[in-house]
């Protein structure tokens, strides 16, 4: 199988994002659960690191000023995940 470092990075981001999202929902109804809180913060930190790495190496992830666009306007550049499924 061909090595695709961007696809691997995306898959890892999706994993940590999902961990954070799932714990977010759990904490909404179990705000006093310390273990879930620690896991949430660990996942959020890991996700943020991967986010920053993606933006450094690939391009902006968010619109409306949540991501910078160094050098040139990169936002319209493909590929777009709604068409690739990744």
């Amino acid at each position, binding site marked *: 199988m061909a090595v695709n470092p961007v696809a691997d990075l995306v898959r890892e981001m999706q994993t940590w994002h999902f961990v954070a999202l799932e714990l977010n929902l759990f904490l909404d109804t179990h705000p006093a659960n310390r273990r879930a809180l620690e896991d949430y913060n660990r996942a959020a930190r890991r996700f943020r690191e991967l986010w920053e790495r993606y933006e450094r190496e690939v391009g902006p992830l968010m*619109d*409306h000023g949540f991501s910078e666009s160094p050098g040139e306007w990169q*936002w*319209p*550049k*493909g590929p*777009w995940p*709604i*068409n690739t499924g990744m």
Partner: protein
Amino acid sequence: MWVYVKQLEYPVRVSRPDLEMAKNIFAQFGGPDSEFSASWRYLTQAWIMPSGVAKSIVIDIGTEELAHLEMVGTMIDLLLGDATPEQMDKAGLGAHYVEHGRSLFLHDAAGVPWTSSYVQAHDDPITNLRENMAAEQKARTTYEHLICKTNDEQVRKTLAWLREREVVHFQRFGEALDRVQERMSRRPHF
């Protein structure tokens, strides 16, 4: 994917509750030319848009419209205040109270529920962009009518700001249309 940001795009203030005005502003929550129609008209077109420019403009504007829907909902909620069923009745919101209480719901100023037949998406980017430009004009006109219906300076300020956004969106869709036409004229198409 999408996330929620716990901040409004622009502040929403009202001087006092005003049930008649709350009822009117439902036009922009769940009416034909509402922010809800705008957001999902543009966002459903994203898959088919042929270029990064066309794709980014429908996604970026469609997403901003969701923030406008949030502002319109906040305006209605503040204008409803803690109205009693009797007060809502007198303001023409009696049926709304029966079916939804003081909750928001996707219907227009007359209580007609939202339907996807208000919007359109085609596999022709030019058709879509012209549809979107017309939609921005209709939303602008609706905001102008709403501004005429209130003397509350705070409400007028927020409505005027939202109206201004429709003007900018119209402009950007027009520029995207120019780019798409330019791109299509470079190669044969049928």
